[in-house]
């Protein structure tokens, strides 16, 4: 193996490394050394290029293996697994409540969806789905819809950055920052909230929570039109996205595509409408569709969905004016502590400590049992699904009657949808691969779990 990559300081020439393998010569190119390579590979009609896993345009650690004929992609394959952390396996060794802490980290751009999908499954296993308080469901919907906006903002921001629209990236992250601050105000954390718990949510909203939501809504209403103004009719944006990443309805069906990719074929399939959960049937909103079946249509759908999410958020704020419980009545399931920040800056609840230490033996027992042992879930299995920003996020949870999940499997939409990369990119240009992948909007944390 001869590796001659590197900078020669004297005459400043850059040489690509080459080594011979049974498959043919393998070149290592690191930038500025293309010139030394072109002479060698001229006449070689078939070049296989590894794009990623460390490529900024691959949305995390996605590896694309492209077979090129000049600038044309003749074959494309996606390689995943670089972010596998064994979340499903780990969940089998924690209580049902602790499971939320793990699954929120899967698709890190849509943590509330991971939590809610899992928790809806656990509640179905427990048979308490209709005992979850109204207010808890509304808070879940509020957080999920805000999360849809922040997730779509990243999709649009990174998608814009990848085709050179840097302003779209900077404003996208600016708006997302507003939402992450809001999440911190409402749940205590910007990401990985573990806020949705079996039976309800971890905490009620803080006293000024609704005002903060209203402020964020005002901000978004002011700034969301910028994306449409920058992109909708921008000739460069349109020439990069229109007709790129084409996948029609038959392709979507065969490949199990859901979310904006499916809705860009004109089919208004949205689980919030077709199989409502968390009371979505009581909210007034539309399912945006396009019939272009390309990355441009997917972009437009994402922008439209952000507006629809804002509509839902406003309806949630109205409903949250009335106070109410945010956790089921059953003290054998309901996580006991409503935390508050004490004078020492620690998250203790003095009221709760007074209650369990001075007032109620039962409360102490429930607290102790829930924290050390957890609650038991009747044996069986369920599949529950929510409409995440990327499509159907399904969870298959199995209980053997114990205090831990026997098995929790997540059907992450990014994982499934990445299978469409060959169908969307083969026969197109290399540069369009990036646009097609951005249209799928995969999040590798969710893909690899």
């Amino acid at each position, binding site marked *: 193996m001869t590796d001659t990559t590197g900078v020669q300081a004297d005459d400043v020439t850059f040489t690509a490394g080459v080594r011979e393998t049974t498959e043919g010569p393998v070149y290592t190119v690191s930038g500025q050394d293309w010139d030394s390579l072109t002479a060698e590979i001229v006449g070689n009609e078939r070049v296989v290029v590894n794009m990623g896993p460390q490529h900024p345009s691959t949305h995390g650690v996605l590896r694309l293996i492209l077979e090129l004929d000049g600038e044309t992609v003749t074959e494309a394959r996606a390689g*995943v*697994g670089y972010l*596998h952390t*064994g979340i*499903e*396996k*780990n969940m*089998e*060794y*924690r209580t049902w409540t602790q499971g939320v802490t793990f699954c929120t980290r899967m698709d890190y751009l849509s943590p509330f969806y991971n939590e809610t999908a899992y928790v809806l499954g656990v509640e*179905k*296993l427990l*048979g308490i789905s209709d005992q979850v308080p109204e207010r808890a469901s509304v808070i879940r919907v509020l957080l999920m819809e805000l999360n849809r906006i922040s997730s779509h903002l990243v999709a649009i921001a990174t998608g814009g950055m990848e085709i050179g629209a840097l302003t779209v990236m900077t404003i996208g992250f600016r708006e997302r920052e507003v939402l992450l601050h809001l999440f911190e105000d409402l749940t205590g954390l910007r990401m990985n909230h573990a806020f949705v718990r079996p039976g309800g949510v971890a905490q009620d909203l803080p006293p000024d929570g609704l005002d903060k939501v209203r402020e964020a809504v005002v901000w978004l209403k002011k700034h969301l039109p910028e994306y449409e103004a920058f992109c909708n009719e921008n000739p460069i944006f349109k020439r990069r996205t229109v007709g790129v990443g084409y996948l029609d309805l038959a392709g979507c*069906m*065969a*490949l*199990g*595509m*859901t979310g904006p990719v499916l809705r860009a074929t004109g*089919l208004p*399939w949205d689980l919030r409408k*077709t*199989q409502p959960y968390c009371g979505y049937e009581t909210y007034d909103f539309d399912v945006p569709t396009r019939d272009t079946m390309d990355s441009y249509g997917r972009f437009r759908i994402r922008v439209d969905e952000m507006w629809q999410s804002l509509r839902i958020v406003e309806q949630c704020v109205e409903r949250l004016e009335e106070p109410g419980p945010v956790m089921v009545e059953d003290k054998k399931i309901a996580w006991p502590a409503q935390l508050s920040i004490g004078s020492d800056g620690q998250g203790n609840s003095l009221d709760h400590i007074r209650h369990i230490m001075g007032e109620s033996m039962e409360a102490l027992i429930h607290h102790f049992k829930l924290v*050390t*042992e*957890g609650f038991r879930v009747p*044996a*069986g*299995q*369920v*599949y529950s*699904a929510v409409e995440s920003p990327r499509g*159907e996020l*399904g969870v*298959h949870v*199995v*209980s*053997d*009657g*114990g*205090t*831990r999940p*026997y*098995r929790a*499997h997540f*059907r992450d939409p990014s*994982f*499934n949808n*990445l*299978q469409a990369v060959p169908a969307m990119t083969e026969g197109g240009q290399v540069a369009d691969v990036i646009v097609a992948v951005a249209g799928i909007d995969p999040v590798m944390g969710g893909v*690899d*779990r």
Partner: protein
Amino acid sequence: MSDADQTGAVEESVPQPLPPHATKRGAFGVAGSGDTSGFSGLVRRVANPAVLPAGTPRDLWGGHAPTVDRLSAALAEAGVGDEAIEKVLVDRDELTVFVSRERLLDVVRTLRDDPELRFEMCLGVSGVHYPDEVGRELHAVYPFLSLTHNRRLRVEVTAPDDDPHVPSIVSVYPSNNWHERETWDFFGLVFDGHPALTRIEMPDDWPGHPQRKDYPLGGIPVEYKGATIPPPDERRSYSG
């Protein structure tokens, strides 16, 4: 399936012993340290519907009955024998059809193609490992979705540990390509007929299949302020 048949099946199932793994010991299921409750000799039986030998009686199928009836009829029309459907389970208003692995491909093709079933999408496959259910240790669970009829259905197939083979349904549902690779990777279930059954999450040369119950979680003890906390799978647990 007539009512008389179903009644007979229920009566037959009663004397059958529950599978061993459906048994738990002690009051708290404690493991890793002594059970001081005085109930350590207690044997509790947990009925896990997924491994019970009997299915749900037909009169409890509720709104799922037409789907199952149509599936049976369509299978009969297609010349697939009665043995394709092992049992039907309706639990928490979710329908699970247990299918013999030899007939899996016929069943999923019927599910997709029959106009009254029309399950256009298969949402992947999830493996479950029940090491104590001898002869049926590995389960493959397929959630199906019909957009036309807005219905869900689950198909479950089992395979023994010493013959971990299930036919691949990629030829019918191409979307299951990666999902089957994942289940092979994590459970060692071989999907016969898959176009390229390679590992997808773990490295190519990884030994073992990590989501199986006999595969340890791993981890190291962590010292914190003088105390040592054992790894999660060695901590005191109450799940047994």
